[in-house]
């Protein structure tokens, strides 16, 4: 693991890159982790940023279905080895297509894209919260926190024990990990937001910062809990995108103050995918 501090994301230099697949493994039923050789992206990616991936192999006149790229948070980055990892669950043709690739296949990636997590001026405890494969951006965040010698807690939720991923990775980075599953097959039974409720109850007025990623209903719940507790929360949202770099305008997010007052919708790809909880409306 690199000890050096990651560059500010204003330095992140995006581009389109042809990236060979190094590994592509089913790490849990229906959940895949892919490592790619992507030195340019690995060099400047900031935790919370994403890559937009053409899910069919790069070749002349690549397949037109799936047509658009699919956005994935960068899960891990190794600057020295020039590699990045992404993780996803098969939910449709794009994620299915991506799961079929063997090592050596070359995929087209655009990245690093978007605004990542705000890692300035920590004044209290740090808590990472994930629902399902929403865990994606947390390992790279954990690496950065570990490099800064900051300790953190991680609350991971999954449907069941089989679909849980990230516990070992975050623990290896020094994280204190708590688990919840919908069916109680690992850790506490119930939603991961219950773990957050308990944590907030035990850490009142703690000047904590929460980093959360997962499905929109979960993020909505996290946002409400944190706003009530007056705790800062950074949410990495999962949403449908077209281009990923601001030209299609297909990923509007409503500002908390209202579209009329702000004068525009935010775009998940440019203004996000990480938003402060108080800035957006669900």
């Amino acid at each position, binding site marked *: 693991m690199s000890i050096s501090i990651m560059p500010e994301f204003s330095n992140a230099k995006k581009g389109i890159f042809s990236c060979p697949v190094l590994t592509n493994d089913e790490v849990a039923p229906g959940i895949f982790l892919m490592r790619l050789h992507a030195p340019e992206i690995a060099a400047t990616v900031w935790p919370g940023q994403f890559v937009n991936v053409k899910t069919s192999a790069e070749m002349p006149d690549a397949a037109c279905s*799936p047509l658009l790229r699919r956005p994935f948070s960068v899960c891990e980055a190794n600057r020295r080895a020039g590699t990045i990892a992404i993780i996803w669950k098969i939910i449709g043709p794009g994620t299915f297509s991506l799961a079929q690739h063997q090592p050596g296949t070359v995929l087209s990636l655009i990245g690093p894209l978007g605004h990542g997590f705000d890692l300035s001026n920590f004044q209290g405890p740090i808590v990472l919260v994930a629902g399902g494969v929403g865990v994606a951006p947390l390992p790279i965040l954990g690496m950065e926190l570990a490099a800064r010698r900051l300790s953190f807690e991680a609350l991971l939720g999954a449907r069941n024990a089989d679909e849980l991923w990230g516990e070992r990775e975050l623990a290896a980075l020094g994280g204190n990990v708590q688990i919840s599953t919908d069916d109680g097959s690992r850790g506490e039974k119930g939603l991961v937001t219950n773990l957050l409720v308990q944590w907030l109850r035990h850490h009142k007025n703690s000047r904590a910062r929460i980093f959360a990623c997962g499905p929109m209903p979960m993020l909505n719940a996290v946002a409400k809990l944190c706003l009530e507790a007056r705790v800062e929360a950074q949410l990495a949202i999962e949403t449908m995108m077209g*281009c990923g770099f601001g030209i299609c305008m*297909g990923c509007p997010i409503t500002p908390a103050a209202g579209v009329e007052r702000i004068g525009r919708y935010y775009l998940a790809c440019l203004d996000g995918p990480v938003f402060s909880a108080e800035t957006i409306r669900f």
Partner: protein
Amino acid sequence: MAVLQIKIRDIEFPTPIFVASGTFGYGQEAADWVDFKNLGAIITKSIGPQPRIGNPAPRLFETTAGLLNSIGLQNVGVQNFVAEKLPFLRTLGVPIIANIAGRSLDEYVEVARILEAHEGIVGYELNFSCPNVKEGGLEFSQKAEITERSTRAIRDLTKRLVIPKLTPNVARVSEIAKAAEAGGADAVSLINTLAGMAIDIETWQPRINTIVGGYSGPAIKPVALAKVYEAARAVKISVIGIGGIMNWQDAVEFFLAGATAVQIGTANFVDPRTGAAVADGLREYLDARQLKNIDELVGQIKFK
């Protein structure tokens, strides 16, 4: 080596490969990582008299080899365009065509008058065919007499190119193209998006916020080709072909059907370098057949 340069009326374009309105922003978003040198023209995101915030989510839905959109003409408005976007566009060294969208003929005229006072624009593409806003624009290219009158109103105030952009959602696009020609247009561009929809069978709700949206992408290419072929046979002015072009082979089909130039649209969302790659492929195709320029392809479809 083949020359890709083309002329529409007396205006020269370095290549016949343009990027379509709404698929390339105002040029800024991709400028530092995409090479623009092969592009013939950049057609801006639609410009209206006032800023528009556009439609709420969901704005996009992908279908088989196609895309439904309902962006709702989100744009910065003509004053911000002139102040903030145009100075940058001028630095790119690529001809700029401003796409104008209005809710009434007065609004088209108002925007064109303001743009007339500013250098660095070679022509106006008139968005007579946006399906995603209530006030439409759509009727401007569904009724021939309105197309002619509206085209004439812009023609009368400018020497720049006037290019109405036509909808495929009509019975006879050739009638609309002829009306544009009669109104003084220098070219017509087509097709804008087809009316399309999709429904979520879990929630029974429409997939995009306006229920019916604009359908684009490689799935619509055969429809676009048929409309371009029909329009090109009906008018003497240039026809600019748009619809599902993903690579140079697609572009060659449009030239053979009668297009003088083509626009790359949805493909930019997948790879904003598509236009440059199409121009390269086209040059090689012409060279391999010892053709000197695009004119030797335009409208050269052969019948047995």
